[in-house]
């Protein structure tokens, strides 16, 4: 038998070896969640004005999160999933700046199938209208506060004649979490959840399989807590969204602002107060729900597990927006 410090040292050594062996076994079994994409191979980069920006000039093809489809995307030099746009628009062109989250980005469909690409094609096929150019500035995970920052710092430079803001059911919860929760920073701890853990725990939670399992388990229960908190604060969250929309309307002065609602998670009527907010602020409100419901009679309009609209869903949204813009005479 050795002295007490020697025994403690031996015990500690055994503990470390045990952890390393467990990590090895868990890796062999392959049961841990994958490394978060933002740490593995991120297309989201830190930005001085936005919570994050999309990596410009990349082209990729990768399986979706649920494995239901393959995501193929190309970003232009501004980091948007779009063709190149000069900041100065051609004379006589009617330019639409489209803001939104992953639905507007087009997660789940090819670029040509996105509702914005179809809308642009359909509007330009009408003849009687001026040439229409749509700057497709959807960013996965964005919500009104982030979209306002995008409009303010980058979007207005495109001299839009109309700003189309897409909102879906995820926006309220994302707004509750806020800009700081979404902010991507340089370094080892890129995301707010890992920054909250600090070093070395945040690093271990991302890079070890034991850490990922434990963090994942904790985050699932933490999410339930956050959702409960969100339910309590939902009225205030909507007040915040109303302030963001009012600010965007001010910023887009000279151009029109239209809010487009696309149901994603609930697949039912817009139950939340978005329409009333738009009425109060005098912002035209386009609801894609009836068009999606019509299309849903022919087959699914969204990916079952992933939840994003599929090609049929995007086609329905394109028809909804086109009908709305033309009926209101918003493209001139």
């Amino acid at each position, binding site marked *: 038998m050795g002295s007490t410090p020697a025994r403690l040292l031996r015990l500690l050594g*055994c503990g470390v*070896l*045990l952890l390393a*062996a*467990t990590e090895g*076994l*868990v890796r062999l*079994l392959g*049961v*841990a*969640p*994958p490394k*978060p*994409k*933002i740490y593995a191979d991120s297309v*989201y980069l830190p930005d001085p004005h936005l919570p994050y920006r999309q990596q410009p000039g990349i082209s990729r093809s990768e399986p979706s*999160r*649920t494995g239901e489809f393959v995501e193929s995307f190309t970003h232009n030099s501004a980091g948007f999933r779009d063709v190149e746009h000069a900041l100065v628009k051609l004379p006589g062109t009617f330019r639409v700046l489209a803001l939104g989250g*992953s639905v507007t980005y087009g997660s789940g469909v090819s670029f040509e199938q996105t509702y914005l690409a179809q809308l642009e094609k359909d509007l330009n096929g009408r003849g009687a209208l001026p040439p229409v150019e749509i700057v497709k500035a959807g960013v*996965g*995970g964005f919500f009104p506060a982030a979209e306002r920052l995008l409009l303010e710092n980058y979007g207005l430079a495109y001299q839009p004649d109309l700003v189309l803001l897409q909102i879906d059911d*995820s926006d309220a919860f*994302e707004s509750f*979490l806020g800009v700081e*929760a*979404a902010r991507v920073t340089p370094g080892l701890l890129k*995301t*707010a*959840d890992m920054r909250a853990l600090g070093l070395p725990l945040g690093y271990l939670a991302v890079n070890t*399989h*034991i850490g990922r*399992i*434990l963090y*994942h*388990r904790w*985050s*699932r229960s933490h*999410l339930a807590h956050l959702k409960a908190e969100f339910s309590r604060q939902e009225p205030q969250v909507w007040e915040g969204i109303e302030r963001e929309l009012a600010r965007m309307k001010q910023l887009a002065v000279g151009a029109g602002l239209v809010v487009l609602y696309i149901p994603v998670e609930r697949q039912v009527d817009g139950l939340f107060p978005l329409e009333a907010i738009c009425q109060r602020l005098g912002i035209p409100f386009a609801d894609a729900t009836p068009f999606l419901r019509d299309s849903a009679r022919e087959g699914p309009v969204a990916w079952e597990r992933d939840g994003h609209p599929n090609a049929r869903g995007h086609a329905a949204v394109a028809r909804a927006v086109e009908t709305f813009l033309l009926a209101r005479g918003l493209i001139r």
Partner: protein
Amino acid sequence: MDWKPYRRPVLIVLALLVAATALLVWLARGPQESPFRYLIY
């Protein structure tokens, strides 16, 4: 070399290893995608 004195601690460590791994496998059940989709898209 006489392994007899080490047999008990080695068995304890192996038992702990199996128990820890089994616990982690149990904890890893359920949906694999993170609920924090907005952070890890």
